[in-house]
């Protein structure tokens, strides 16, 4: 193989979104030499697209709020599949992380008395999301980016990691990367590696995710021997754009509903009142009058439009299937009839612009057409809650690539806070681990050679396949067979298709130079997407019940006695992806008591 450059750091962070940058800031501050590697330019990671806000029980709008209520909302939103310790740490620490971000320069919208304003979101009992209009993710990433730059952290931009490297004991001790610009390889030696690579949405056809969301971190962890958890739980965000076709899937923030927007079907009916599940009946308004009072008085119950996302996405799906959808196959999201144009433009500037420029729709006077879109992977690398250590020594994970925090369904706003809380904790965990090593581990050069040769193979073998075509077929398969509503027959068919697609992906031929060649990058990304698709599909077959972001038409109800007490764990066993059941550890009494409390 051609030669490659080598860099050595204490900690290597893969991904430069909110979790990766927050982790890197922590490790650098602790004195560990740190590198951040990212597939795009710095500041472009998918965090930049987060809109609504950061959930944290600051209590600046509703002093009644507390970490205990946030914990309860999160666990109930996750349908109790969550790693309860992560949910506890998240609820307890997110207020400090938000205030810390402010002290680093973030400028949140303000309350009249000058504190951080918080907005309502689905599944949250109180207005809890610290925000900046509807571009909170941009504020977070720029603040962390500036902080990282000021700290002098080395950032390797436009570099894709294609393999984690391990020492003979199996511990992770570095990574093999590919400079997208030059097409040359780069090897990182590191005592600890933090995965912060985000999500997997590009495996589906209609998604809010950017091109980067190809599940690289999930796949890298799997290949390195780590366990993934809850991979069957995929969040379909209820409100994605559906028209024009080219914009289909783009996120329409939940803040539209948090700020007063409602859902209507073709007949103008506010249909969510027909979809209030028993589980949420005690905390959801069942009349329009009560729902509309809730925004100003939290003694009333929440509008059903603000049920958790899994519930709303299924309801939208059902309305369309019942023939009550909009002309392009969605439903209507209406804020125009509910709030003043001035209020809408101030609170939702990005949505106003997005619809105006892409769809010729003025959301201050017209309704939006929306439908579900693949948004978020609840599942990911199984980590130890306090340190984010994976089941492989030396490998840590934080943010969307990690699993457990959100259970079967994530509440809106809990992702940005997750990035900060567990990005920081992963940084602390990785530094502690690195300091405890007697001898820095050394990667096996043979591993580098083999992975690099495999990557270069796409140029040589003259196979018949176009990577773009394989990707489109993968997206079609996952969209139609492993979507919002699943059946055993569809899932089994998906596995057959994945077998075929695996073969086709290996037969991809890439033409052109190694320098910035998107077809080559996609050929490599396909390896990750196919691994993730298989993990998701097999876990979905194994969970024979419906729960959160996993709905089975053939098992439409939750099974609290069996599957409600289990996480599905995916790992590689001698090259084969396997799924096993793992009992959820019992919750301490003091946390269980919080869940038993009245709404």
């Amino acid at each position, binding site marked *: 193989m051609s030669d490659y450059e080598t860099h050595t750091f204490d900690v290597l962070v893969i991904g430069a979104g909110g979790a990766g940058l927050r982790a890197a800031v922590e490790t650098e501050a602790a004195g560990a030499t740190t590198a951040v590697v990212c597939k*795009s*330019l710095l*500041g*472009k990671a*998918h965090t*930049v*697209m987060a809109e609504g806000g950061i959930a944290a029980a600051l209590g600046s709008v509703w002093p009644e709020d507390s970490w205990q209520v946030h914990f309860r909302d999160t666990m109930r939103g996750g349908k109790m599949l969550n790693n309860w310790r992560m949910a506890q740490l998240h609820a307890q620490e997110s207020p400090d992380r938000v*205030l810390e971000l*402010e*002290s*680093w*320069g973030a*400028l949140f*919208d*303000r309350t009249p*008395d*000058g*504190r951080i304003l918080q907005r309502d979101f689905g599944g949250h009992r109180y207005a809890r999301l610290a925000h*900046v*209009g509807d*571009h909170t*993710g*941009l*504020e977070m990433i*720029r603040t962390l980016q*500036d*902080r990282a*730059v*000021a700290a002098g952290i080395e950032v390797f931009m436009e570099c894709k990691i294609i393999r984690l490297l391990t020492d003979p004991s199996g511990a992770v001790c570095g990574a093999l990367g590919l400079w997208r*610009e030059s097409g040359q390889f780069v090897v990182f030696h590191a005592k600890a590696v933090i995965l912060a690579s985000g999500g997997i949405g590009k495996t589906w056809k209609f998604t809010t995710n*950017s*091109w*980067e969301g190809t599940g690289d971190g999930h796949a890298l962890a799997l290949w390195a021997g780590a366990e993934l958890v809850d991979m069957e739980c995929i969040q379909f965000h209820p409100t994605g754009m559906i*028209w*024009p*076709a*080219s914009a*289909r899937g783009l*996120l329409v923030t939940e803040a539209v509903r948090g700020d007063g927007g409602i859902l209507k079907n073709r007949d103008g009916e506010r249909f969510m009142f027909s979809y209030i599940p028993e589980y949420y009946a005690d905390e959801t308004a069942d009349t329009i009058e009560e729902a509309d009072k809730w925004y100003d008085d939290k003694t009333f119950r929440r509008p059903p439009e603000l049920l958790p996302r899994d519930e709303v996405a299924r309801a939208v799906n059902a309305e369309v299937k019942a023939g009550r959808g909009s002309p392009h196959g969605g439903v209507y999201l209406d804020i125009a009839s509910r709030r003043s144009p001035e209020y809408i433009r101030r609170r939702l500037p*990005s949505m106003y*612009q*997005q619809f105006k*420029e*892409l*769809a010729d729709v003025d959301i201050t006077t017209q309704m939006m057409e929306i439908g579900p879109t693949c948004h978020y992977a609840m599942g990911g690398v199984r980590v130890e809650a306090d340190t984010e250590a994976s089941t492989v020594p030396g490998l840590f994970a934080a943010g969307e690539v990690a699993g457990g925090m959100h259970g079967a369904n994530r509440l809106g706003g809990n992702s940005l806070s997750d990035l900060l809380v567990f990005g920081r904790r992963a940084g602390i965990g990785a530094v502690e681990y690195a300091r405890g090593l007697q001898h820095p581990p050394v990667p096996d050069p043979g591993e580098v050679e083999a992975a690099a040769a495999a990557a270069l193979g796409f140029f040589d073998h003259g196979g018949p396949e*176009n*990577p*773009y*075509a394989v990707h*489109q077929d993968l997206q079609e398969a996952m969209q139609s067979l492993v979507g919002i509503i699943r059946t055993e027959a569809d899932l089994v068919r998906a596995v057959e298709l994945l077998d075929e697609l695996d073969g086709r992906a290996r037969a991809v031929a*890439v*033409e*052109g*130079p190694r*320098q*910035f*060649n*998107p*077809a*080559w990058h996609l050929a490599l990304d396909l390896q990750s997407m196919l691994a993730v698709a298989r993990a998701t599909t097999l876990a979905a077959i194994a969970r024979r019940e419906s729960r959160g972001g996993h709905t089975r038409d053939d098992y439409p109800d939750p099974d609290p006695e069996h599957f409600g007490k289990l996480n599905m764990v995916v790992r590689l066993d001698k090259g084969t992806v396997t799924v096993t059941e793992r009992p959820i550890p019992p919750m301490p009494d003091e946390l269980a008591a919080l869940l038993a409390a009245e709404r």
Partner: protein
Amino acid sequence: MTPHADTPTTGGTGAPPTVTLAIWRGDAGGGAFRDYTVRAIEGEVVLDVVHRIQAELAGDLAVRWNCKAGKCGSCSAEVNGKPRLMCMTRMSTLDTTAPITISPMRAFPVMRDLVTDVSYNFAVARRIPPFAPGPPTGDGTYRMAQFDVDRAQEFHKCIECFLCQNVCHVIRDHEENKPRYAGPRFFVRVASLEMHPLDTLDRRQLLRTELGLGLCNITKCCTEVCPEHIHITDNAIIPLKERVVDAAYDPVAWLGRKILRRARPTPAAEAAASSPAQQHNEVIVTDPPAVSGD
């Protein structure tokens, strides 16, 4: 492919409608425009067509993009010579009777096809002294009135597409100016810090010298191309120029204005009492090192 998503722009019984893009292909050694003709689909943006060309005709066509929603600022290019985000430029706004030219941003060296080397921008970013807040209020948090954060919030909307840098004629046709000129994006960045209610540093000296604010002669080209509609010239550059002038020639006037701004009453007495102005502490950045030769 995705037949049900494909609605032709026009009906009729003839061949499906097509569109032709003339895309610049090449690298640092040179290149040329090449025509690519693909199906036209209603409602698409330029980036959609570029993607279809990638998928069907030119797999190795190099282009940056991420969000495809105007939020990340990755897909900047020149469409018929006009600097635009390709993801927010609808095909219906362009004349499709002739090939539409797509070329890389001109102010930055070409790497390959539509991808340019924008490392200049990241180098400038490293030279700007970071945010330095004063101490918080007694309870450990900060208080700021919405009125006081509005100005800096406008600048925080910047998505770093670098289109403003691309059109700024101080550097667009004068590579030699880059080492001594920060460009509109980073004047916006400095403005966001200078107008941040909590910040305590003073970057005026740096603006005057190393960042080359004086080279800008406010032609507003940057403001015109900003996809976030930030009033770069009026709200960032001109106020910064005034501050620099005040600092250089009339420190009393500058101090007076700063005190007046800081002392503006906020809606709640509590907020006013705990304003960071109470502990405000001006720190003047020492002279920056001399800029190396052009």
